[in-house]
């Protein structure tokens, strides 16, 4: 008992002492914090391989996204140094750099490693000439469609959102909905999907993003046209309750045969067309998401791994990241998990990987590559304020879907919020 009390006392004092050492692990041990995805789950299972190869023990902690956000906020703001490698979504990288939370790894990763990574996702982590993280995941927007329902309605696969409106009208009956898309508010939820419609109609977030003019343009006529289409598709041709759908509900509706079309990221589409998951897989096809007058702009979401500024073991951390994105490690994960979203180019040459995904759906990998070619890196603006902007716009878009305000009012509200957030 006495021992227990003295241990507790010592622990309490150590915790309360501000000048206590911040390094909480040995030099040959690193802490890796990731949130749950097929790749990160697969990586956790391979931790022993890394230790066998390098002699460095990797404690890979894979947590839920909400827990992840709290953990990093505490660790980064407190500079505790308890994380050596951190899951770095591309959408957050600018914000983290601005906040001084990441350290560049330009000089710590070899040319050999970076040359095998797809240029688009790699470039998304290059800011001010420095490499801040290496990508492991690039999910793109795709569309799944039910061949049998299209045939019964005498319709073709829609090439544009305009086509989608007319095809959806033909398919929708009292018992059959046509389409489901993410509608729940959030920069990673409806704001992962809605920009596909926006950009197809020529809508943008800013007057001239590439030219550096960040005057909001969310209330443009193009965006209004897009929002009207998005709202109509969800409300008139979607299943009941679609105004609150997120990716899980879209996935379930597609797998249960409740919808004919799902416009989603590769992670969800790969499950919808996989016979092991969905009983309608054999009558489901894959296509690029619809386009519009301004072309086609599939959504893109990139995830990578970076080193926190407070990390104490950055050499070992960089070694881990290089190992994690190596063709050998990624191939193992692509084979063990449902993970077709890899960014290590040579994995696509691995015959076992190709065979695995061809057996799920013959068009899957080729459609993914075609979508990646069309996707623009700044699909969602790569600026530090984006998470705040995306949240605000997503809330207004969701309010319009659910009839709380009109699409015009939603875009005016979003415009005002954007100006407020950007201090304009």
């Amino acid at each position, binding site marked *: 008992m006495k021992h227990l*009390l003295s241990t*507790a*006392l010592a622990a*309490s*004092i150590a*915790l*309360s002492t501000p000048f206590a050492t911040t390094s909480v692990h040995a030099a040959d041990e690193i802490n890796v914090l990731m949130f749950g995805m097929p790749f990160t789950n697969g990586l956790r299972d391979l931790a022993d391989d890394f230790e066998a190869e390098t002699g460095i023990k990797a404690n890979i902690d894979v947590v*839920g996204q*909400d827990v992840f*956000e709290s953990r990093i*906020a505490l660790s980064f*703001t407190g500079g505790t140094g308890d994380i050596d490698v951190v899951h770095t979504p591309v959408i957050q990288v600018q*914000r983290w750099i*601005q*906040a001084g939370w990441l350290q560049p790894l330009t000089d710590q990763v070899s040319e050999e490693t970076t040359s095998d990574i797809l240029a688009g996702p790699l470039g998304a982590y290059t800011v001010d000439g420095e490499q801040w993280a290496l990508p492991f995941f690039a999910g793109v927007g795709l569309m799944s469609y039910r061949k049998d329902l299209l045939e019964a309605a005498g319709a073709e696969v829609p090439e544009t959102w305009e086509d989608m409106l007319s095809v959806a009208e033909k398919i929708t009956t009292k018992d059959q909905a046509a389409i489901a898309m993410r509608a*729940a*508010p*959030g*920069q990673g*939820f409806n704001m992962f999907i809605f920009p596909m419609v926006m950009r197809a109609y020529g809508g943008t977030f800013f007057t001239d993003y590439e030219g550096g003019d960040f005057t909001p343009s969310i209330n443009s006529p193009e965006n209004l046209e897009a929002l009207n289409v998005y709202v109509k598709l969800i409300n008139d041709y979607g*299943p*009941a*309750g*679609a*105004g*609150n*759908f*997120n990716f899980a*509900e879209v996935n*379930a*509706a597609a797998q*249960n045969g*409740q919808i004919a079309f799902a416009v989603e990221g590769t992670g969800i589409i790969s499950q919808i067309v996989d016979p092991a998951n969905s009983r309608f897989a054999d009558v489901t096809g894959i296509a690029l998401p619809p386009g519009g007058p301004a072309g086609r702009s599939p959504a893109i979401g990139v995830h990578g791994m970076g080193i926190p500024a407070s990390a104490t073991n950055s050499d070992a951390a960089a070694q881990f990241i290089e190992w994690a994105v190596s063709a050998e490690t990624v191939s193992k994960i692509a084979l063990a998990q449902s993970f077709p979203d890899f960014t290590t180019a040579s994995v696509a040459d691995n015959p076992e990987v190709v065979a695995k995904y061809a057996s799920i759906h013959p068009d899957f990998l080729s459609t993914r590559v075609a979508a990646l070619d069309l996707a623009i890196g700044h699909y969602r603006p790569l600026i*530090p*304020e984006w*998470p*705040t902007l995306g*949240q605000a716009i997503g*809330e*207004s878009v*969701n*309010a319009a*879907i*659910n009839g*709380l*305000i009109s699409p015009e009012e939603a875009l005016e509200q979003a415009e005002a919020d954007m100006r407020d*957030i950007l*201090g304009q």
Partner: protein
Amino acid sequence: MTAQAQLRKGATYQLQRGYRLMMVPALLAVAIFAIVPLAGMFALSFSDYHLIRGTNWEFGFHNFAKMLADKRLMNSIYVMAALSVLGVAAQVLIGSAVAVGLQKITGRWRVGRILFLLPYAVPHVAVALIWLSLFTPTLSPINAFFDVFGITVPAMLTSQWGAIFAIVVADTWTNFPFAMLIIMAALQGISPDLEEAAAIDGASRIRTFIHITLPLLAPALLMVTLFRFIDSLKHFPMIFVMTKGGPGRSTQATNFYAYVQTFQSSNVAYGAAIAVMLFLMAALISFYVAKLNQRVTS
């Protein structure tokens, strides 16, 4: 003072010092895990700490002044009040009703009480996922059941009051056992003689309950209402999982709004100021209810 008395006094002092030393870890734990973070939150609420815009470490009342003009904050307080009042009322009512009902059950069926406690043991995120499925028409067995009879159950999560109702239902399901437990304990403390005496005097069961049982339960009812109300100010997991604050912003309760400001908008100082306001609100309610409780008990 005799030598023996002096010795005894010395022994008492030794004993007291021993007890005081044993309290040190607990006091340290309170200091580290409650007082230090609280002080930090108060300090941050007066600062300009912002992760993106940069921080000059200027201290003042600007965050509190901003609150007065923040329509989203006012909306969040309105949402929080609706969720808390409706949720706590439902939990206390259902908890009391079940407690009174279970009190009547005797013999081996008493084991059945455990069934009513199960929802309380389920983690809130799991509760939210269960009810999200039940309120999603394409997944819900409730909708499937009524569909058989041609009845369409409306989608709850796509309208403001529907979504508030859904969150209240989920919150009530998981928290009514807490109210039930406290009321059951209070019921067991009431002497059956009182009810018997009332019965002999010819009082009906309902009159006995209203005039004898209920007044004796009042302190417990007040306490459970207070505990649940303060806890309900922390609405988060149900909203995060079930609605993400939607439709639009119509289920963004104040605690969720503080999260949005801190984690989505990087405005840590403003998020802390909102948390301070919530803390003071809870403290104020506790103070008044404790005073009220004292009056009722005496």
